[in-house]
Every structure is written in structure tokens, then in C-alpha cells.
């Protein structure tokens, strides 16, 4: 049954100016979820953050001005799933190294943050490109 599901499919231009919009929609979801027992402020920040990290990766590493940036968020029961699509060349998610805390490199923390905040992260080819799928039990 899909009757207890919340599902958002969002398309935005491939531009960083819309990161705030999507992040804030993620926060809104956290605040308006029924039956969430945890700290909503923390959940709100974390959804904002994983959405921002995943979308800005597409813009930086797989973006094209001619394509829309597509993200799908769904919540069914206590299962949250976020899918971020790209039409770039793809990359090896498992090969992304964990950042060395001693190394003050300015980049390379996005995937680490996503992995830390979500229960599972998966990147795979689709018929139209690639999708980063992030799941979490609420």
C-alpha cells in the first residue's frame, strides 16, 4: 500500500543557489513527520546536510547546465529513502577513502558525512545515468 507514504520528487536547475531550498524542504519533512520519537532538530539538520552534500556533489562532479537535477525523497513507516540522480560518468563509491582527521585538506568530507549520518549508501547505474541512494530507519 502506498497510502501511508510521503513522497517528494523534485527537479531543480543544476545550480548551487537551490541547495538551500532542497535542504530546507528536508528540514520541513523532519519537523512535520508524525510519530518521530527522536530529536527533530538533529534529524532536520542531518536531512538538510545529506541532501546538500549529495546534490552539491552532482553539481561539482557530474553536473551539466542542460540537465535538471533530480532528487526523490520518500518516507514510508519509519523508512526514509533519498535518491539523487545524475547523468555524469559515475564514480566508485566504495573507493572513496575515509578522510584522515590529521590532514587539513579542504575537500573530501561529503561522502564521509553522508555515510556517517545514514544507515546505508549505495551508488549504481540506471538506464538514464546513476543514482545515489541513501537510506535510514527513523
Amino acid at each position, binding site marked *: 500500500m502506498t497510502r501511508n507514504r510521503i513522497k517528494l520528487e523534485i527537479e531543480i536547475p543544476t545550480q*548551487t543557489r537551490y541547495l538551500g531550498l532542497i535542504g530546507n524542504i528536508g528540514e520541513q519533512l523532519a519537523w512535520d513527520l508524525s510519530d518521530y520519537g527522536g530529536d527533530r532538530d538533529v534529524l532536520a539538520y542531518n536531512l538538510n*546536510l545529506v541532501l546538500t552534500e549529495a546534490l552539491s556533489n552532482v553539481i561539482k562532479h557530474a553536473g551539466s547546465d542542460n540537465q535538471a537535477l533530480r532528487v526523490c525523497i520518500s518516507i514510508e513507516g519509519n523508512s526514509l529513502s533519498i535518491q539523487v540522480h545524475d547523468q555524469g560518468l559515475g564514480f566508485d563509491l566504495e573507493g572513496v577513502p575515509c578522510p584522515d*582527521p590529521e590532514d587539513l585538506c579542504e575537500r573530501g568530507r561529503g561522502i*564521509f*558525512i553522508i555515510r556517517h549520518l545514514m544507515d546505508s549508501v549505495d551508488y549504481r547505474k540506471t538506464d538514464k545515468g546513476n543514482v545515489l541512494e541513501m537510506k535510514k530507519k527513523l
Partner: protein
Amino acid sequence: MNITLDNKDGSTLLRFHEERLDAHNSKELKDYLLELMDSGSKKLILDLSEVRFVDSSGLGALLSGHKNAGLREGRFALVGVQSRVQSMFELTRLTRVFEIYPGVEDALADGTGERPHDSKQD
């Protein structure tokens, strides 16, 4: 990017008037900090009290400021860090890297350029 500048006892106080420091404005902040240092401002205090959200590229801009201040024997202190932003520093183990003070006065009072934690260590 909305930022304002002020001089306080020989330090440059920067107030970042944005709710988010993310991939949309982090490059601009990074470049701005570098320009300031290159034009002679060596002691920077960045007031983040309006910032309620920082992503990894925002952390990158702050790290760039920190590293460049170090290279120039200057100073890069953060003040007004909100608790959610602080937990971003913790998650990425940057809490001990940055020089963080509650408010501007605290940063000025302790104008050593040393990290506040250093004095406590051995």
C-alpha cells in the same frame, strides 16, 4: 555573500550575514579571506553567529582561512559558533583545529593566536 567588516583593537572582525555556509557561497568566502590576508589583514575574527548550517565545502572554506593565516603567521579565530555547527566540527574532528571562542571579546582578550586548547595541554 553578505559579509561586513569592522576593526577591533588591531583585529579584523568579519560578520557573515548568511544562514547557510555551503557550496553556494563557500568559494566566495574562501577567496575573500585570502584577499584580506594578502592585503595585509593578518588577524581575522569571523563571527558565525547568524550561520545555522554549514556543509563540507563550508568547512573547507574555514580550513582554508585557518591554513592561510598559519602560513602568514596571522590569526583566524571563529566566534558565535552555533551548537549544530559545532557538531559539524566534531563529526569531522575539526574542533581542535580551529581557534573557537564564545564571543568577540573572548577572542580579543586571548589574542595570542594560539588555539584556546593549547594552553591546557602539557
